[in-house]
């Protein structure tokens, strides 16, 4: 269906008239600074200092935290923590940082401990738990039979270390070199570093998966991230992702499409993930800009590019070429920018910095794919298509990182597969033996899933919502970035966008008006000239 026929001419005319009336106000307001809820510099630095001042405990004074703890014995530290914080165990064990399975009723069953699949490292379930457990808030996850009921296996330190020295190894255990007593005596509220040690490294390495999260945020300038920059608002993750009894509010892969949460009773703990929680839904001086909020997410205009901190994010991962050797050894290739274009253990990859997002209608629901799902016939396979359209009142135009991949699947069962990747030579793991046959067979056995014994590769795509790395107001998108035939929203369908869309009716009306005004002006001028001097 062409854009010409998307809506009736009547609505186009209304839109034109609306635009004509709104333009002066828009022109006046563009460039104006959006209203900020915080007027002083680094306001959250003061908030955090106040929180520290109000604290009533000095953990360095507690004898039980002085240890000594045996090398790598994180559970001993946990037991010490639980002597004073006994209810913390139940709270943590109910959280998705522990279960790796979201609580949300729409998303239960779609977590790292389930059959969820992606097109980066594919799945933890193919026997890769030990490697993935470096980012599990627990100790001892080495396979799918991890006991989620043992409170001594909770890892308190990964979220509460304030020294930056804590480090986890395979199985989620502390590195035996970590001085557990020193760290245990300096625990505190979670900082950017605590969250970032895992969330900046999604996809296996810094900046790989998300695009808007990497460890350059720790030293961000305000131009890179107005919120988390120390010279900006100096916020930490938990200022928005508010924790409620150890359940950290978060998207669980899905960001509610800018819904403003309201307290049901005074003092209710609420997340502040939606921009509107602090900025309101009408933060601009211009009514025209504020009206955009109904159909455009704040992030769309205020995050003009992602991966702006200096690190490149992964845009494409082709597993089908992995496993090539040179002189019998694995190897890597880099391009002129130093980006890794090939690695034996990964295959071909594409990386980029300062990437313009893709824009898509999105109502807060991404429909994910499981290893047990039958694949559709459509290629490439969309692993998490976004729901939403112009007609959907909950949907807005959102920015996404669009990631492409090529990953193994079972052409007989028509399902994606979970290869065993992270293991030593001789274990059957792909990164040890570079043999897909063995890696997939072993992986599916470890996952407890059927496998026909045949594999091929299938192209897949994924969407990753962009919501961090918010730029200063002066760097946000201008009208022409979208209201243009070749603008950023050129591919977003289902509605009439002034400046982008054209139709003969509206063009005829517009040019007729221009012609009439020109003719009237000319006639007026001629008459004034001819009758000049007459009273």
């Amino acid at each position: 269906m062409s854009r010409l026929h998307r809506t009736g001419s009547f609505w186009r005319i209304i839109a034109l008239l609306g635009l004509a009336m709104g333009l002066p106000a828009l022109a006046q307001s563009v460039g104006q600074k959006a209203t900020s809820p915080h007027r002083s510099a680094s306001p959250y630095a003061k908030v955090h200092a106040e929180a520290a001042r109000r604290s009533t405990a000095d953990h360095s004074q507690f004898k039980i935290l002085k240890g000594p703890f045996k090398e790598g014995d994180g559970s001993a530290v946990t037991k010490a923590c639980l002597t004073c914080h006994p209810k913390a165990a139940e709270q943590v064990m109910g959280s998705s940082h522990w279960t790796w399975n979201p609580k949300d009723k729409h998303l239960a069953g779609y977590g790292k401990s389930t059959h969820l699949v992606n097109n980066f490292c594919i799945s933890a379930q193919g026997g890769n738990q030990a490697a993935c457990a470096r980012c599990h808030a627990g100790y001892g996850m080495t396979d799918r039979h991890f006991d989620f009921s043992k409170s001594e296996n909770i890892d308190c330190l990964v979220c509460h270390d304030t020294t930056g020295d804590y480090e986890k190894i395979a199985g989620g255990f502390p590195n035996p070199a970590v001085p557990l007593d020193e760290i245990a005596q300096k625990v505190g509220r979670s900082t950017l570093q605590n969250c970032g040690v895992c969330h900046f490294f999604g996809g296996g390495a810094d900046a790989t998966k998300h695009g808007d999260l990497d460890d350059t945020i720790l030293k961000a300038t305000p131009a890179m991230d107005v919120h988390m920059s120390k010279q900006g608002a100096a916020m930490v993750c938990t200022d928005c992702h508010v924790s409620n009894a150890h359940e950290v509010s978060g998207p669980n892969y899905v960001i509610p499409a800018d819904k403003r949460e309201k307290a049901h009773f005074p003092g209710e703990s609420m997340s502040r993930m939606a921009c509107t929680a602090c900025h309101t839904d009408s933060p601009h001086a211009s009514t025209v800009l504020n009206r955009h909020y109904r159909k455009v997410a704040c992030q769309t205009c205020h995050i003009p590019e992602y991966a702006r901190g200096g690190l490149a994010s992964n845009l494409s991962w082709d597993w089908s070429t992995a496993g090539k050797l040179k002189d019998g050894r694995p190897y890597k290739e880099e391009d002129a920018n130093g980006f890794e274009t090939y690695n034996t253990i990964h295959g071909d990859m594409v990386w980029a910095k300062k990437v313009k997002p893709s824009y898509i209608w999105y109502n807060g629901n991404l429909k994910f794919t499981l290893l047990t799902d039958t694949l559709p016939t459509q290629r490439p396979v969309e692993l998490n298509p976004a729901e939403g359209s112009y007609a959907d009142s909950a949907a807005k135009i959102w920015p996404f990182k669009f990631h492409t991949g090529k990953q193994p699947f079972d052409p007989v069962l028509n399902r994606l597969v979970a290869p065993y990747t992270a293991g030593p030579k001789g274990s059957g793991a792909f990164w040890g033996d570079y043999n897909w046959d063995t890696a997939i067979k072993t992986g599916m056995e470890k996952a407890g899933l059927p496998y026909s014994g045949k594999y091929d590769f299938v192209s897949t795509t994924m969407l990753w919502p962009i919501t961090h790395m918010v730029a200063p107001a002066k760097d946000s998108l201008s009208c022409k970035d979208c209201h243009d035939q070749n603008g950023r929203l050129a591919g977003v369908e289902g509605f009439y966008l002034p400046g982008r869309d054209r139709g003969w009716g509206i063009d005829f009306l517009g040019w007729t008006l221009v012609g009439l005004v020109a003719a009237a002006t000319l006639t007026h001028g001629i008459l004034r000239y001819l009758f000049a001097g007459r009273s």
Partner: protein
Amino acid sequence: MRIRTLIACTLILVALPAAAEEKGSDTKGKYYFKKSCKSCHADGGAAKALTPLSKTQAQWKKFFEGGKHKGDALSPKFGPPAQILDIKTFLVNHASDSPQPETCGG
């Protein structure tokens, strides 16, 4: 002949693990390397950035056998001897020409 073969095989079996890896802890060495070395040897740091990939196994071994860093003895300045051995183990095991080259967090 049999005895000679047996001795040769025994020697190979004993020598192989020693050649493949150092005797310290690879895992702990990674941690101490970050704490003791990367505090200066990092991008934007006081000294040239270093990762295990910066040298070959032979080069790392030569550095640690020398036992000195700009004229100072490695131990105790950069930790007790056991920690220095752990760092050496990590760097040698993941050097540029090792079976498992590693960057150590870039």
